[in-house]
């Protein structure tokens, strides 16, 4: 509102700068006439010569010469002045000028401004952006605020705890690792921070568990021996180090009795199978992603999501191939492979399913329907 009042005031002042001189009636004495202006200049020059002569700045001869020169010009100016002019004021041009000032100027300026400007947008100086309510702000702003706070108070451990997972989400594992390390240094050890520190270090290292990460996981296990995350990464580390036997044992130990709905299970299963181990008995549960997993997947970065889905599909694939499953599960695998663009794998699944349900007309029919629906076989 204040903006519009000020805009109106500025416009009014601009219009007045035109209207006021237009309203003035013509000066009574035509002393401002062009030619007399010239003459005035020359008369002033004459006076100046007299003054210089009085002060002894020029000698009488020079003064005489200057006077002659000026007088010559003055005469010429006077002659020109004889055919003087009269101000020709026309009513119509006056009207036009007034209309321009009152109507055209504000409309033009306002129209152009509305086209170019952003009248609704408030100023956003640094100080205002830093103190605005958190819910109005983007993650970047919030992170910057926390960073600024931490730059000023680097000993605030809670701040590091808050910012660390955000860094992880933003794909900045190095900063996340640093933040977890700071939190642990300031607030003492906690198994989940240690595990997250290890995870951040691993992600920062392109998925290879290095010594620092392994130490972090080991510290986490020392605090909480049943924690899943550190055990998962340690098993992964064993596999990466080529200790196949130990790795298989670690994976089997981890998967023993695990809830298959857990997000990590599929990838653990596929890792185990890649090493050639057998998947142990797991707890019961629906096969396939549950609500939580779907929600987790939808929040993930696209690459991560892709990776998670691939992990789950690989898990399903391995299980159906080794243990078999229902017709619907085979159909689910076919669909997943098609969605992932693995045409060959989808066809393979289709053939395996056909082989598995040989003789079961009902199951074969539903598998054929599914295959037709997913475009694996031609729909004739």
């Amino acid at each position, binding site marked *: 509102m*204040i*903006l519009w009042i*000020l805009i109106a005031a*500025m*416009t009014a*002042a*601009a219009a007045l*700068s*035109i209207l006021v*001189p*237009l309203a*003035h009636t*013509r*000066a009574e004495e035509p002393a*401002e*006439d*062009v030619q007399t*202006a*010239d003459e005035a*200049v020359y008369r*002033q*020059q004459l006076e*100046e*010569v007299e003054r*210089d002569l009085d002060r002894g*700045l020029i000698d009488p*001869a*020079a003064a*005489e*010469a200057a006077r002659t*020169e*000026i007088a010559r010009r003055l005469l010429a100016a006077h002659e020109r002045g004889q055919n003087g002019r009269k*101000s*020709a*004021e*026309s009513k119509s*041009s006056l009207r036009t*000028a007034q209309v*321009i*000032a009152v109507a055209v*100027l504000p409309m*033009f*300026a306002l129209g*152009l*401004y509305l086209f*170019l*400007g*952003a*009248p609704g*947008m408030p*100023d*956003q*100086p*640094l*100080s205002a*952006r830093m103190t605005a309510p958190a819910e109005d702000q*983007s993650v*970047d*702003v919030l992170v*910057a605020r926390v960073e600024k706070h931490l730059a000023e108070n680097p000993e605030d451990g809670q701040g590091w705890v808050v910012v660390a997972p955000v860094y992880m989400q933003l794909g900045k594992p190095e900063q996340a690792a640093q933040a977890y390390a700071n939190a642990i240094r300031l607030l003492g050890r906690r198994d989940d921070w240690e595990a997250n520190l290890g995870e951040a270090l691993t992600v920062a290292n392109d998925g290879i568990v290095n010594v620092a990460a392994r130490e972090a996981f080991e510290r986490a296990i020392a605090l909480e021996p049943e924690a899943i995350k550190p055990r998962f990464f340690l098993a992964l580390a064993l596999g990466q180090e080529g200790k196949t036997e130990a790795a298989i044992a670690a994976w089997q130990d981890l998967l023993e009795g695990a809830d298959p709905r857990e997000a990590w299970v599929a990838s653990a299963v596929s890792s185990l199978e890649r090493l050639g181990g057998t998947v142990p008995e797991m707890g019961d549960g629906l096969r396939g992603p549950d609500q939580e997993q779907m929600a987790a997947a939808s929040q993930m970065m696209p690459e991560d999501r892709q990776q998670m889905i691939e992990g789950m599909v690989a898990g399903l694939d391995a299980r159906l191939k080794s243990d078999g499953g229902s017709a619907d599960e085979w159909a689910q695998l076919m669909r997943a492979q098609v969605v992932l663009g693995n045409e060959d794998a989808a066809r393979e699944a289709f053939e395996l399913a056909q082989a598995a349900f040989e003789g079961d007309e009902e199951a074969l029919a539903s598998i054929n329907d599914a295959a037709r629906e997913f475009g694996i076989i031609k729909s004739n």
Partner: protein
Amino acid sequence: MIVELGHYALVLTFALTLIQSTVPLWGAVREDDRLMAIAPPVSIAMFFLVLISFAALTIAYVTSDFSVVNVWENSHSAKPMLFKITGVWGNHEGSLLLWVLILVFFGALVAYFGSNMPSPLRAATLAVQGWVTAGFVLFMLATSNPFNRIPSAPIEGNDLNPILQDIGLAIHPPLLYVGYVGFSITFSFAVAALILGRIDAAWARWVRPWTLLAWAFLTLGIAMGSYWAYYELGWGGWWFWDPVENASFMPWLAGTALLHSAIVMEKRDALKVWTVLLAIFTFSLSLLGTFLVRSGVLTSVHAFATDPARGVFILVLLCLFIGGSLSLYAWRAPLLKQGGLFSPISREGALVLNNLFLSAATAAVLVGTLYPLALDAITGEKISVGEPFFNLTFGPLMVPLLMAIPFGPVLAWKRGDLLAAAERLYAGFGIAILAVLFTFWLWGMERVLAPIGVGLGVWVMAGAICEIWTRVKPREVGLKRAFERLKGLPGAAWGTATAHFGVGVTVLGIVTASAFQDEYVQTMKPGDTVNLSGYAVTFDGVAPRRGANFIEDVGHFTVRQSGVVIAEMEPSKRLYTARQFPTTEAGIHTVGFSQIYLSMGEGRPNGAIDVRVYFKPLVTLIWIGCVIMAIGAVFSMADRRLRVGAPKPSAKRSPQPSATPAE
């Protein structure tokens, strides 16, 4: 809100410029007083509006409002406050806003001080000033709007180009702009005179002070830019004939010519048509300079704005203004009445000579600047026209001009006496010869041209003193009376003498610093010493150091003269980390008017380093001379008298007393 208010103020200014460019002019042509009367108040209104606009942008910079694209692109919340403010014009959009601010400021000055001008002249002048303003404001709104916004403000800005984070470059553009834009007033006066078909007496009076003002600022701006290049670029040079430097030098040369022809017009009512043409040329060259720098047709340190759309727009503006005003000149100039006559040997004649040489020099620089660009555009061949070209063209033009400088002020108006003038300059000539001999004695006979160059500089300086001497005539009137006469001398006389003295000082600096410079370029290991011009410079070592927003390698050097330590110097190589931008900081130690200059190159693995060591005798005189010239312009401007140039009474009636020199 403040940002948007600034934006609206700029838009409203544009609307006013459209009215300003038409209504008063219509009034001037129709001789309608009321329509003409709107020009001054509208000028003042425009000034305040642009001031609001500029203040809004400055506030956005100071508070780091990165919702403004321009601020986000060129500022950083951690930047020192000084560079936040100078950052306002350290970029394309902001510098244009500063340009427009100065433009409307000058318009407002004309409106405010112009009450004694004939109203058609004032109305037409302000209207032409309105055209120029309209062109530039439209350019901003269309292609370079400093008030464009980003809906969600980024957290941090991109920082200012580190090379511009320097106090020298912070004040260099405003000085140059006042110079460039100051010439817009003389341009507007000239075009107004052409439109009205008449040159009034007031016209002649107004051109000189405006030209002087613009010229003084341009002189300082160029000198500041030159000194900045000297200490920041690390090549030890102070002038590179770089197109951007030439872009400011051309209006300076043309402006110098204009300022001299304006004297003739003011005092003798002659050379009117030529002055009008020079005024048009001078501002056209300012516009050309703006085009060269702003459009990005050059790629050099100055071209921090590069955008083809802008280039085309500003080229169209350039063609409109230059082409339009020259066509107007061709059409209307014959209407203008030519004034007083004069003989070739006279003050006027000397000033015409000055104009001839300066115009030719401007043409030489123009060719040297535009030819490589044209060649590049037509054939794609890239050539660089550097020092040799300008030494062959510009140099020879300057020598006779410098020789003639002392004669001008001692010649009489209308009909002068060369012999009498020469008599007054005997002393100066004697001093110059002594200077030449002294230089030969000091530096030997190897270089013949350099001592003559020294003599030329001294000749110009001594000539300026002679002029004051002959005006005061202390031998004839006695010391006490002479002192009174000295105080009573008109400001313009002091101005002339001071400015000419400054030219001599600069010439002396240029000649000695280029001809007698001692230079070593070599690899030095810690402990190594080079001897130059009686100074022993020892390299002690290099150490890293961390600054506010840069890291640097600092070399430490000790300078000894006959075994006594006289200075410790620390040149450095900096890396501005935010933009990964390296810069060189030269080490400079001033001894009297001379300087020892150190610049570090690449480091070697064994701790050795490539070093350029210069001894530059009297190098500071180059810039001191420029400052003296600007002071001269201020003296001359302070001369508010009404000036008239009358011929000396015929020599037969009052014979000229022979002014024999004292020495």
